[in-house]
Each structure stands twice: as C-alpha cells, then as structure tokens.
C-alpha cells in the first residue's frame, strides 16, 4: 500500500514537473518574441534604443536565463529567484522610463504600439513575468529537485537557440549604436532632433 502511494505521488510529481517545464519554455518563447518585436521596431521603423531600453532588454534576457536554468538542471527555487530578480529589475527600469516621460514638457519616446509605448508594454510584461514566477513557486515542490532530469527535448533546445540568437542580435545592436563606448541618450523624435533634456525656463 505504501509503495503504491509512493508510485502515485512520484507519477504526479513527474507530471507536475513536465507541466512546469512547458510553462517555463513558453515564458522563454514569449520573452524572446518581445525582443524580436523590439528588433522590428529598431530595424524597420528606425527607432534607435536608448540606454534604459537596453537595460530592459538585459532584464528580458536575464529573466529567460533563470527559466533556461530550470529547463536544463531541473526546477530549483534559486533559479526561479534569478528570473524574479531580473524581472523586478526590469520593472524598476521601465517604471523609471515611464516616470521620465510623463513629466510635463517631455516628449514620449518611440512610436506607440497598440496605443502604448514600448516601455509601458515592458512594464506590463515584467509584471506578468513576476506573477508567473510566483505561481511557479506555489506549484514547485521540494521533491521536484530530486527528480532525474532527462535529455533536452526539441522544444527546450529551441528555447536555448532563441535566447542565444536574441542575445547575439542585441550585442550587434549595442555595437552599432554605442560602438565600444558608453551608450548615450538618443534624441527623440529623430527628424526634429529634439533633445530629451528638460529645458529650464
């Protein structure tokens, strides 16, 4: 009877592990889709990213990093913490940018997408990632860490490939925009060359 209970709990644990890993992979796909969207804005709409935009992109990759660790080494709370810390950081950065651009006399940065600016979307997405990681923590179990982790499946390998491609793409973008120096604020709108500095009157 005892053995039967153990086997059932192990089976449900394995099922739970698979569901959580699928959710983590979906989160990585979502985050990388956001980064690809920002590449679209950058290269097709000629919207050069600012230093805060790069910091948000770093937070997106960092949030995906924690999820990748979960996919590769099994679900552990310290890997979920990496995702959480990066998404909280990203949330702070996007809040900072929203606050900068709601000041009177400050133009909004970039073209709106579905009515919202990219940094507002980033704020909402980081909030969603924080929520999803907290839900993951609720459903993670101490015994999940003891489960043997099988070889990477194709959908996990795809998540790795996407993160590597997006990170290399961001490195290329940073190299084009900032060269080997520090990234500087980008004037917006680009045609009118309006400075982002607050003018004292």
């Amino acid at each position, binding site marked *: 009877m005892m053995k039967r209970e153990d086997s059932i709990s192990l089976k449900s644990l394995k099922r739970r592990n698979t569901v959580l890993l699928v959710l983590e992979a979906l989160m990585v796909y979502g985050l990388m889709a956001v980064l690809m969207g920002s590449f679209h804005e950058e290269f097709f709409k000629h919207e050069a990213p600012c230093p805060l935009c790069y*910091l948000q992109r770093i937070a997106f990759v960092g949030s995906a990093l924690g999820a990748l*660790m979960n996919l590769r080494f099994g679900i552990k709370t310290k890997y979920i913490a990496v995702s959480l810390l990066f998404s909280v950081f990203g949330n702070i950065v996007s809040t*900072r940018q929203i606050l900068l651009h709601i000041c009177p006399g400050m133009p909004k940065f970039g073209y709106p997408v579905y009515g919202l600016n990219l940094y507002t979307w980033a704020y909402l997405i980081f909030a969603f990632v924080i929520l999803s990681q907290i839900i993951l923590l609720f459903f993670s179990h101490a015994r999940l860490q003891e489960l043997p982790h099988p070889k990477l499946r194709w959908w996990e390998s795809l998540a790795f490939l996407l993160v590597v491609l997006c990170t290399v793409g961001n490195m290329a973008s940073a190299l084009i925009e900032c060269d080997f120096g520090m990234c500087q604020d980008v004037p917006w709108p680009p045609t009118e060359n309006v400075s982002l500095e607050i003018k004292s009157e």
Partner: protein
Amino acid sequence: MDMLGLFFLLLLSVIFIIYQKPNVAFTLGLVALILSVLLLIHHMTTTLEVQL
C-alpha cells in the same frame, strides 16, 4: 562597452548552462544583475545632474 559587456556576460552564462556548469552560469547571471543595477544607478545620477 557597458551594454555590450552585459550582453556578453549573459551570453557566457547561457553557454555555461548548455555545457552543464550550473554554478558558473548562476554566478555570471548574478554578476550581470549587479552590474546592471550599478549601470541604472549611474544613469539615474547622470540624468539628475542634467535636471539640476
């Protein structure tokens, strides 16, 4: 160099995950996070200087 270096750190971390070095990847991820926070503080202080 600042953003380029941070993306490079994250890329290194992903490579170490692929080659199954969890501790190195974890440490690199945390170093990238700390450096990002420092960069944000730097950006905030310079923007404050402009405003003042």
